[in-house]
Each structure stands twice: as C-alpha cells, then as structure tokens.
C-alpha cells in the first residue's frame, strides 16, 4: 500500500495538523468536569502556578512528616507513602520548574492571545488532570510514568518557547500572516 502520494503525506504528516480549537472548548470541558467556569485567564494566571507550587511544597512536607512518624508502625503503609512521597517530590520539583518558566514567558509576552503554545500547553494540562484523577482512584506505575512524562513534555514546551523568545522569533510569530504560514 505504498505509493508516492502516501509517502508525501507521511513525510509531511505534521504539516496536516494546522487547526486549533477556540478557547471555549477548554472552558466548556473545565466547566463540565469541575462544575464551575474559570475561564482562559485562569490558565494564564501566574499566581495560580505560584499557589500550586506552594500547595505542593506544603503537601510534600506534610507527607514527609507523616511518613517519618509512621515509619516504624506499619511497613506496608510506609512503602505506599514512600511511593506517593516520591511522586509528590517529583511533581513538586516539576511544578516549580513549570511555574518559573511560565513566569518568564509571561513576562515576555503579556499581551499574547491564544496561540500554538498555549493550546498545546492547555491540552497537556487537561490530560494531566485526567491522569491525576486516575492516579487518585487507581494508582499504578504506568499512570505515574504518564504523569511525569506529561510534566516533562510541558517543561520541554516551555523551554522551546523560551528559546524562541530568546532568539527573537516572537516578533515574527506575532505577525498574524507569518504566524499562519508558520503554524503547522
């Protein structure tokens, strides 16, 4: 089933993904899943990231203390707590990274609207929430790996965006005509 046409499409596969949904989709999903509308600005609000990082720091400190005090009483429970703590530590670390990088980007482009970057980022966010829920109900190594991967991908996205901004590509991207031809 190979022909030149198929080859052409496959070698340009990424260029076929050029459409992005409007922000209302994510808003509706969020409203439907969490029962209350918070809007796009929520995602772009750096205070929320700071708060999230703070919450995770407090949470992991609490878990650490709890684990430490319970370590001699119940070895099975402590193993579980250790696994959870390990994940929480990782999560806290990445959240700090994400928070820091998001702030940097935010400083660069305050007036920026919805673009390829925020779209991808929000999609990852949505997936993360879904995974997080799964972790709550059915914790497993696979879900944990998926969560960590999600965080890493987000950090990678942020790094790419930062590089772009540092290289001065941002100005070019902000031009709607050039942006349309660049976005794939």
């Amino acid at each position, binding site marked *: 089933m190979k022909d*030149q046409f198929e080859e*052409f499409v496959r070698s340009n596969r990424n260029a*076929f993904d050029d*459409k992005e*949904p409007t922000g209302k989709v994510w808003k509706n999903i969020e409203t439907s*899943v969490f029962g209350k509308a918070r809007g796009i600005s929520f995602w772009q609000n750096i205070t929320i990231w700071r708060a999230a990082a703070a919450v995770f720091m407090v949470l992991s400190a609490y878990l650490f203390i709890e684990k430490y005090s319970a370590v001699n009483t119940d070895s099975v429970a402590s193993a579980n707590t250790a696994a959870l703590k390990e994940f929480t530590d990782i999560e806290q670390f990445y959240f700090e990274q994400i928070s820091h990088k998001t702030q940097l980007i935010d400083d660069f482009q305050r007036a920026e609207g919805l673009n390829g970057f925020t779209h991808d980022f929000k999609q990852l966010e949505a997936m993360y929430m*879904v995974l997080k829920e799964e972790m709550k109900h059915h914790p497993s190594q*696979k879900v944990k790996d998926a969560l960590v991967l999600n965080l890493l991908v987000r950090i990678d996205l942020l790094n790419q965006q930062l590089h772009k901004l540092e290289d001065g590509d941002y100005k070019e991207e902000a031009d709607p005509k050039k942006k349309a031809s660049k976005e794939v």
Partner: protein
Amino acid sequence: MFNVSYRITGSFDDAEDALQEAFISAFRNLESYRGDATFGGWLKRIVVNKSINLLQRRKHESLPENEDWDLAEDTDSTTYMDGLSVEKVRDAIQQLPDGYRAVLSLYLLEGYDHQEISEILGISESTSKSQLNRAKGKLREYLSKKI
C-alpha cells in the same frame, strides 16, 4: 486531537463539539482505561469515535456502505506529484465525501490499519480498502485538476 476530529467531521464546529464530548467522556470513563494501550492512543480513539458518531448523527448516509469487493490499486501517481503541496492536499482531502475522507484520514494520517478502521466504522476490511482506493482516486482527480 482537534485536527483528528476536524478531518473526520469536516467541520470546525462539529470538531469542537466532538473534542469537547470526547474529553469529558474520557474524564468520566477513566475506569475503562486499563493501560492496554497508551493513554494518548486511548484518548485519540475516544476522539475518533465521538467524531464518527457526530458525523453519523449529522449526515446519515455519508459513511461507506458494506461492499465486499475490492478495486485494483492504482499506483500511477507520478503525473500529479509535481507541484504537490501540503495545502493542496489538505484542501483536496476536505473536498472528499465524508465516508472517503474518514477512511483516508484514519488510514493515512492517524495510522490505523484496515482492521482497526473496520471496527471503528463498523464496515468490512475490504470495504475499508476499497474506500481508501477510491478516496485516493478522487484526490488524484482533484489534484490533477488544480495543477
């Protein structure tokens, strides 16, 4: 995910609806995800199914009918290959009838095989193959007209 849905439904609004339904449904049916596929694959399959459902709801007779015959594969693709661009191909795909577009997108762009497509669309494998050949034929037609 949005592009997957857009290619199947052929409409921006329908694609948004399907994406929304799919993400909400995924969230509510997390217990059905048992790790036998990648999470992305699982989610994509939900998006595909929602998009197909929406397409079927909106346009009843648009999906391929069961046909147990096959077309000879046409491999003469050299004539229209010159000047081929992603934009032209993308536009041509959008012009395809719904059924052809669904099969072609699922096969060529989403990487499903004919067995998977037959399950998704509820058609036979041979129908899936013949629809793909016809879709490619149509594309060839559109593309050679434009060049």
